[in-house]
């Protein structure tokens, strides 16, 4: 559970950073990036032994 949480938070963080570096700067786009990161983090955590 803690692992999943860590990955989710980390995912959001990285998603927002990636979105920003790709010149997506409006709030809406940044949130979308964060959502994408959340998806990635949760998916990844599901596939990991923890």
């Amino acid at each position, binding site marked *: 559970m*803690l*692992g999943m*949480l*860590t*990955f989710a*938070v*980390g*995912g959001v*963080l*990285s*998603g927002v*950073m*990636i*979105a*920003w*570096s*790709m*010149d*997506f700067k409006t709030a*809406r*786009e*940044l949130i*979308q*990036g*964060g*959502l*994408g*990161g959340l*998806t*990635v*983090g949760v*998916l*990844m955590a599901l*596939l*990991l*032994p*923890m």
Partner: protein
Amino acid sequence: MILGYVTLTIFLAAMVLTLLRKINLPVQTVLVLVTLVCLAIGAIVKGFTEGAAAILTLPNEMMGGIILHPVTALLAGLFLAGALNASGGFEAFKVLIAKLQKSPLGLAGTFVVLINFPMITSLPCGRIMAAALLPLLFAFGSEGGMNLLTKSQLIVLIGAFARNAFGSCGPSPIGGVGQIGEGFLGSHFPTAADGILRAPQAFSLMIGTALTALFLKMISRRLYPDSCSLRDKREGEVDAIVVPQAPLAGYASLVIFVAALIVAIFQPFGKVPVQTVLVIAAIAIILIGRAGIEALMAGIILLPVSAMVAGFMAAGALAATNGFDALGQVLGLLAKVPVLGVAGMLAIFVQIQTMIPLSCSRILTAALVPVLFLFGPAAYGFLTWEQLAVVMAAYIINATTSCGPSPLGGGGMMGEGQMRVESGYIKGAYTFTVMAAMTPLAAVYMKFLNLVNFAAPGEALTANIGALGGFVVLIVAINLLAIRLMARLAAPGDKPYFTQVGGFLATGMFAGMVLALSTFGLHVIPALQGAFGGLLAALWIAFMVPKKLEPEPAPF
């Protein structure tokens, strides 16, 4: 013992000379030659000192170095990827991506998912995913026809994607590089082979990818402004949105692929080797997709396979001629230098593959993980098992990402080719993020969260999510700060290059310190020693980043 020093010197010198292109041969060839030379020298010396019988054991010991499991697992993983490709599985991926864009994730979210795709699927070599998806990424730009992204967005997208791809071979459960380390940790942690190194790597890869994107946007583009020959949208150009399509067999093979991954990871039907699962899945996909055996073969990327075998061979030759004992002694001496200590020595050791980036990380990993293992209770006793696991996590992520910045045909060159930039463009971004962020992140994740799940029976560890969070925030913040500062001064020429070097040094020091803290706990001396070791490693890494990128002249 002298023999050990000689063979060790030959090995290291050959690697560095290959890296600097003073030896112009494929790395595996060099390694095989090194192996032969080492064995020959060993035979002569042993023949004189211990008699002819000792010579006969040498080839045996060399072959004993080859650990078959990761090699066959890698091959099986490659088969599966080949089958997936042949039956249109990657086409199905593309359709999914197109669908995602219309979902609430939107364009930005889709790109985030896309960039992290290689990590999620975790194929045993990043080249598979990169070969399949890089053309798609390229198509998002103006030259590719879709006109969705500008030049600078495209650079970031491709660069970050390639970063993710060329670290994804580490956490892969189906023949990943990490499995070499997991095999060794298995001698203490009973379930290590289930993937003790996977989560730390995946986590730091996820964060590191984002930092890479940032670095590319804020620094690389300013440092090498003339290197990229992509172009932006022209006046009056029409966008061509391509709607991807995939055969039904593609979706089916995707489902089988996911099922195989899940079976391989979670082993719901009792212990079955991954090779079996993967081969069966590959054959199933081949049957469904009506592809031939050729499709299986087409998926084999020989480099990682031959690199790993060559690495094991060289390791075997070094072991047979006491080269590792010599290395152990040298590192032991290094650990006795007061400013370095064990912590400083380790801070250098974990960065070694980024310092010597070869075309495939498996070469050095195969040869050096056994050395790292010796630091543990099994031989020298510098580290306890838990500490060894922490250092191993840091080492492995550093290793697996090292084919990214390699100028010897490393994976990063695929990205550079797609970005239409000169070789070396991504080197700064890739080495910086690995050194400064990913290596310490993997260490803290291992220390504060992952060890708990894999603790040996009888040990009680508690997860410390607070400390993990604190460290992650700190590491990311320091990196952001460093990138920001470097970006302030970045413009092509000498001065900004040295600013960049400064940024590398500062963050390198910090990374060494975090590593020492997560290995040895809250003690001032090891922390300082770790910082110094990190500084030395960073010095080397920073000066390998090219100052300017000269386009190579066409030969004719």
